[in-house]
Every structure is written in structure tokens, then in C-alpha cells.
């Protein structure tokens, strides 16, 4: 590859937003125990989570990656395409020695740590819900609950089950303490932070008056002093019955009655998970692409995380485009392409060789070219083309392609400027766009390297706040 002629000014402009996020420092810090990747759908959350997990493992940590809904080929490459709801060790992790031999990023890992491991799993939300029930109810009661039709619907897909179960699984993995780093992918939620809201929502539902109302008739039944209350209750349940249909209401009541003793457990777990997310040792990464909608969602995430006092360490900006020829503007590239496509210029004879070595003074060649012969009626297509004509045509295409790239770059820049203006405090790491999809470990490794390389200009002071605080505390 030729030396990169990128304009230093252009590079500086692209580096300007906010602070740079140092991914390796985050992954290497033993204080980092949980990394949560969140962001809107289609921005590469799962891939980012997997790439971070792999990189951390190859840098010596014992990592588990919890994915929600990975692309099939990515799941296959990690050996987690079967749903059994337990982490599986991923084969093909390169240890430090191999890393050093490969000569890639080995210096960072060279701190005497060895024996990194990567485990990965795909969430089975129904199975996870069943496990929670089994953990909190005696076997007989658990069986009643698991067989209840209302429970079966609830566990398979109420709005938020997936989110709640992802957080539940995270709590379980953390409690096992078998891994020193857990990387979590979050579900592609309807609204951005459902995974934060769902445990609370479920908790408040289970604690709520409605539940007491539904269970009340059974509990209060017959007690004289409660007669008045009972009338109110039965009127209410009557209304619900009218709406839901008697059978459904009965299913709900049976479910609620059976769950009664396990509610406390649910609530406690939801609270514990929420606190775990706020704890030092947890790091939130917001993942986005440099597109308007994705960055708007990212800004919303940033604001919500702050409001919930969740430790945000930075923004991963995937699929950022660059150009080795950033100096050549879209406008100039297009003008030049038109020069080449103008038949009066394209169909010049060989005799104009001088032109083809025009000096570096801009504009002069154009003048010279326009004076060229207008003649030679070689048809544009069909007839055998002049070699120079062919190359000119290609060059024009290359210039048009470049113009398109530069337009994309400036659009991406405008979009991210808008985000940065709103949130200058958020550290950012760019991940350059790849032409194709990632579906093997080599691809993930490459993304990991790109994630880390995004922070080469990092100064100590620019460390992510969360990480820095944690390091100081430990």
C-alpha cells in the first residue's frame, strides 16, 4: 500500500469531536467487570460486543459474552448457534504468545497476564424465565406456574420479557463469579432503554395494587369486616372478567396466586440487577453508526443513562468512512471527472503526450485540454476503444466514486458534529467501515483491533471518566 496521503488537517477535523475512548484501557482494567453495549437496531451492537469480548480474552481476561440475537453465521463462528442458555467456551482464541507472533497489539497484552478465555452464549428468554421461577418456588408450585397458560404467554413474549431476562441472565452470570469480565449485548428494543425499564416495570406490577386486587378475593374471602371492600373488589374483578373473559381472568388469578410467594424474589432480583448496572465495575458503551437516526437514539441513551446514574464510558461509532485522498474535495473530483468525460478531451490523439504529464499547477492542464482537437469521432461504446480512452473512463469513474465518498464523509461529519455539540463530554471511538459483513473470529479480531486503534492519539487525561474513577478507587 502506498503511504497514506491523507490531509493532516482533514484527519484533525475528524479527531476533534470530544475525547477519544481508550478501549484497551477499559478492557485491561481488572476493575471493569461488566461492559453493556446498547444502541438502536442495526448499528452493530452484537458484533461490537463479540469483538470486545474476543479482544479482552486475547489480552488475558476470562470473558463471557452474552448475546441476544446474533446473526446466524456469527453465532456459528462462535459455536453458540444452539440455544441451551449456558455459556460455551469459544475455540480458536489466540493466547498472548500467538498474539505476539502475529505482531498485533501484543505490547498492550504484555503485562504478564496469560490464560485468557472466551465463553459465549445466546439468551433463551423462556428458559431463563423458567429458571427464575424454579429458583424461587418449591417444585410443586413451580410446576403449577410453568403449566399456566398465562405464564406461558408472559414468558414467551410480553413486551419487555427479553429485556428483563437479559438483565436477569446478567445477574446470574455475575453471581457465578466464574468470569472476570462479562460483555452484554442488549435487545433491539422498541424504545431505547427497555432493558432498564422492564425489571422495574415488572417489579412494580408484581408489587402493585392490581396483583393484590387479583389475589384478594381468595385471601379475604368471608372475613366479615372486609365485606365492604370485598364488594368493591368483586365489582372490579367483574369488570376485568367482562373485558378479559372469565377463563383468562381465572388463568391470571391462578398464576398470581401461585407466584405470590416468589414475588419478593423477583423484586429483589430486579433491584439487585439495577444496582449492579449502577455499580463501579460496570461500563456502558453506547453503540451507533454515523447516521442521523442512530445518533439521535444514541443521544437519548446518553441522557437516560445519566439520569439513571449508570456509568457511561463512551460512544462506539461503527462504520465510519474515511478516505486516503481526503484532500481532493468532492467538487474538484467531479469537475475533473467531467474533464475526462468530455469527448473533446477524451478523444485526443497520442501526440498530446505533453498534456499527460502536465505540471502540478492546477487549472493549466484544463486550459490546455480545452484547446485540444474536437475531431476524432470514435463512438463512446461499441467500437474498439482507445486504451487511453478506456483508462480515462476508468479514472473518471474513480473520481466520481471518490466524490461520492467525500459527500458521505461530510454528511457523517455533520451528523456527528450535531451529537458532539450536544454531548461534548462523551468519549468517542471510531470504527472504520468494512466493505463486507463480519462472521468469523478473524473478522471480530479485526474489528477489535479497529476499536483499539481508534484511540491511538489518546492522552492520559482523556480517559473515560468511569474507568479513571474506578482505577483511582482500586
Amino acid at each position: 500500500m502506498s503511504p497514506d496521503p491523507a490531509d493532516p488537517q482533514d484527519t484533525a477535523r475528524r479527531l476533534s469531536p470530544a475525547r477519544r475512548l481508550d478501549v484497551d484501557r477499559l478492557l485491561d482494567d481488572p476493575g471493569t467487570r461488566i461492559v453493556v453495549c446498547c444502541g438502536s437496531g442495526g448499528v452493530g451492537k452484537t458484533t461490537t460486543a463479540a469483538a470486545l469480548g474476543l479482544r479482552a480474552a486475547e489480552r488475558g481476561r476470562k470473558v463471557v459474552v452474552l448475546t441476544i440475537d446474533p446473526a446466524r453465521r456469527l453465532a456459528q463462528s462462535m459455536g453458540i448457534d444452539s440455544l441451551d442458555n449456558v455459556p460455551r467456551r469459544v475455540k480458536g482464541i489466540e493466547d498472548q504468545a500467538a498474539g505476539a507472533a502475529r505482531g498485533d497489539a501484543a505490547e498492550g497484552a504484555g503485562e504478564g497476564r496469560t490464560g485468557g478465555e472466551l465463553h459465549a452464549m445466546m439468551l433463551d428468554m423462556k428458559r431463563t424465565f423458567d429458571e427464575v421461577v424454579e429458583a424461587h418456588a418449591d417444585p410443586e408450585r413451580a410446576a403449577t406456574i410453568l403449566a399456566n397458560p398465562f405464564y406461558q404467554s408472559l414468558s414467551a413474549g410480553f413486551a419487555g420479557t427479553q429485556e428483563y431476562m437479559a438483565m436477569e441472565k446478567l445477574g446470574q452470570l455475575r453471581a457465578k463469579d466464574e468470569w472476570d469480565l462479562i460483555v452484554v449485548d442488549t435487545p433491539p428494543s422498541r424504545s431505547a432503554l427497555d432493558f432498564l425499564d422492564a425489571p422495574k416495570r415488572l417489579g412494580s406490577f408484581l408489587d402493585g395494587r392490581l396483583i393484590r386486587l387479583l389475589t384478594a378475593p381468595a385471601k379475604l374471602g368471608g372475613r366479615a369486616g372486609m365485606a365492604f371492600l370485598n364488594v368493591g373488589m368483586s365489582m372490579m374483578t367483574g369488570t376485568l372478567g367482562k373485558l378479559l373473559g372469565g377463563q383468562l381472568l381465572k388463568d391470571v388469578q391462578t398464576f398470581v396466586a401461585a407466584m405470590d410467594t416468589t414475588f419478593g424474589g423477583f423484586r429483589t432480583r430486579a433491584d439487585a440487577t439495577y444496582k449492579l448496572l449502577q455499580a463501579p465495575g460496570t461500563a456502558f458503551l453506547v453503540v451507533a453508526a454515523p447516521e442521523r437516526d442512530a445518533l439521535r437514539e444514541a443521544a437519548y441513551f446518553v441522557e437516560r443513562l445519566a439520569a439513571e446514574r449508570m456509568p457511561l464510558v463512551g460512544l462506539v461509532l461503527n462504520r465510519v468512512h474515511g478516505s486516503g485522498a481526503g484532500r481532493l474535495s468532492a467538487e474538484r473530483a467531479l469537475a475533473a471527472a467531467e474533464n475526462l468525460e468530455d469527448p473533446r478531451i477524451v478523444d485526443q490523439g497520442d501526440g498530446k503526450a505533453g498534456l499527460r504529464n502536465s505540471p502540478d499547477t492546477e487549472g493549466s492542464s484544463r486550459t490546455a485540454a480545452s484547446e485540444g482537437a474536437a475531431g476524432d469521432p470514435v463512438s463512446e461504446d461499441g467500437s474498439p476503444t482507445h486504451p487511453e480512452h478506456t483508462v480515462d473512463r476508468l479514472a473518471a469513474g474513480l473520481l466520481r466514486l471518490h466524490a461520492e465518498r467525500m459527500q458521505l464523509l461530510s454528511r457523517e461529519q455533520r451528523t456527528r458534529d450535531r451529537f458532539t455539540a450536544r454531548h461534548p463530554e462523551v468519549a468517542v471511538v471510531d470504527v472504520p467501515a468494512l466493505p463486507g459483513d463480519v462472521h468469523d473470529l478473524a473478522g471480530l479480531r479485526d474489528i477489535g483491533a479497529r476499536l483499539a486503534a481508534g484511540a491511538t492519539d489518546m492522552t492520559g487525561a482523556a480517559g473515560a471518566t468511569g474507568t479513571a474513577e474506578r482505577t483511582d478507587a482500586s
Partner: protein
Amino acid sequence: MSRLQVVSGKGGTGKTTVAAALALALATEGKRTLLVEVEGRQGIAQLFETEALPYEERKIAVAPGGGEVFALAIDPELALLDYLQMFYKLGGAGRALKKLGAIDFATTIAPGIRDVLLTGKACEAARRKEKSGRFVYDYVVMDAPPTGRITRFLNVNDEVAGLAKIGPIHNQAQAVMGVLKSPQTAVHLVTLLEEMPVQETADGIAELRAARLPVGRVVVNMVRPQVLDADDLELVRTVERSSVARSLATAGLGGARRGGNAEKLVGPLLEQAAEYAERHALEQEQRAVLGELGLPLHELPLLAEGMDLAGLYELATELRKQGLS
């Protein structure tokens, strides 16, 4: 032409944009369409550059030829209260239920009730008639949940009809299924020419078909223009760098000699062409996969200036040209 047009697609494929463009396209020539949002993201308001939409059908755009586009952001909680009022005159009881957390329960926790309300409201709008007997809306276009959830979302009434075996909810659920599983409905899927969205589209179609929901068309969004053709791509691999440098010099980009400005551009430009070639090959592969789905395929161009209101009209024109409306 189905009266209820459901638009789904993987996250990031631009399904809201396509839904909005379709609503505009269907509104041309004096027609009236309703664009329905169900996920509370206010994507429609952002697209049409208006303030956040309330739970109310309001006109947001005029289509060429005098047609009108109305929009509605369905709020499940209000839809439920609406529904209680409409069918049971339960206004007061509704407020009591709300206090108890029952409304919260029904719209966020209870399996499917939320989705029942959303699909129910859209079906109601699609069937609503004026006194004259004319339909209020010629078409209802729904910006639906993503491909991964669409079958479940649309099919939820089946499940609810099974759970609530009798009663008004059962009846309502069955009525909605009657619309959704008939030719009155068409479910379109938006994708990009990338592996994951295409895979998800294929999976989504299989699921929709298994649930006997009517699959409409596949819309490939944000298709990049072809800049280099097959001959160019062939030449990229074999061309002499010096001759490209000479061409660039001819075009006025500086010297072609080693170290000259034009010569320095050759490497980066050829690299961009190689990336283009790789992506192009992947796109062709994905086009072939989509071709095997046996559905009408439509392509919408990537707008160079990014998505804005003008772009939306451009896409609507394109959809009309391709016979989607």
C-alpha cells in the same frame, strides 16, 4: 390493492422512511391515506419535520394532485381507554383501572394486549366509513415493528383469541385477525443489500407465510448508484498505475510523475475502487438471494443529500413509477 399496508424491516433499513414514502405515493390523485406509527418513537414527525404527533389523526402532508396524508401515533394507553369508552362506556371505570395500575398492566405487561390494541386501532381505521358509505381512508400504511417481531405482532390476536376464549376481547381479536389474514392486508419488508438484513427478510417471510399472513413486496432501500461497471472493475485489477496517474493529470489534478499530486491520488483511489468492487460483489450475491424469494422486488436509491422532506417526495415518486401504488 390492499387497504392496509404494513411496512416492516430490520432496524436501520429505513422502514419508517419507506412507510412514509408509500403513504405519500398512495395519496396521489386525490386519495387520502393514514400513516400509523405504533412504536412511540415519533419517527414520522421527525421525517415530516413537524412537532411530535399526538394521539389524534391529523393531516401532515399534501401529495401531488391534491391527495392528503394523515398521521397517527398510537398510544396504547389512550387506545385502551378509547376502546373501553367506545365499547363499554367505561370511562369512569377506566380511570379507576388506571389508578390500580391495571391500564399499565394491560398496555405494558399483559401478553399481547398492547399489540392487540395497536393492530386493532389500525384495522379500525382501515375499515372506518363515512355516512355516505365511502371509506374515510383509501389506504392505511402502518410503520410496523421490525422484521424480527412482525409475525408475532400481527399474529398476537390469534394468541389472545386462544387465551381469552370468550368475551369481547376474544371477539375483537378474531375480527382483527379477519382483516390481517385477508387480501385486505399486505405486509412489505424493507431491506438493504447486506447479508444480515437479507437473511432476516428471508426468515421473516418464512414466518409470515407459516402464520398465513399476506406477504406483499420486498423493498430494497438505500441502493447505492452504480459508479463503476463490470469493464471498469476488470480494469481496476490490471491497470498500470502510471497510466491512471496520466489520466488524472489530464483531468487537471497535478503531476503524473512519482510524487506528483495526481500520482499520489492513484493509490487511494484504486483502494476505494477495490472496496467498491468487494461491496458490489456482496450486493450482487444478496440480490440473487432476494431474487429467490419469489416476491416483487423494488429498489429505492440512496439519497446523496441524506434523508429530508424533499427526499421523501422523491422516494414517493419512485415508488409510484415502480407501480407500488
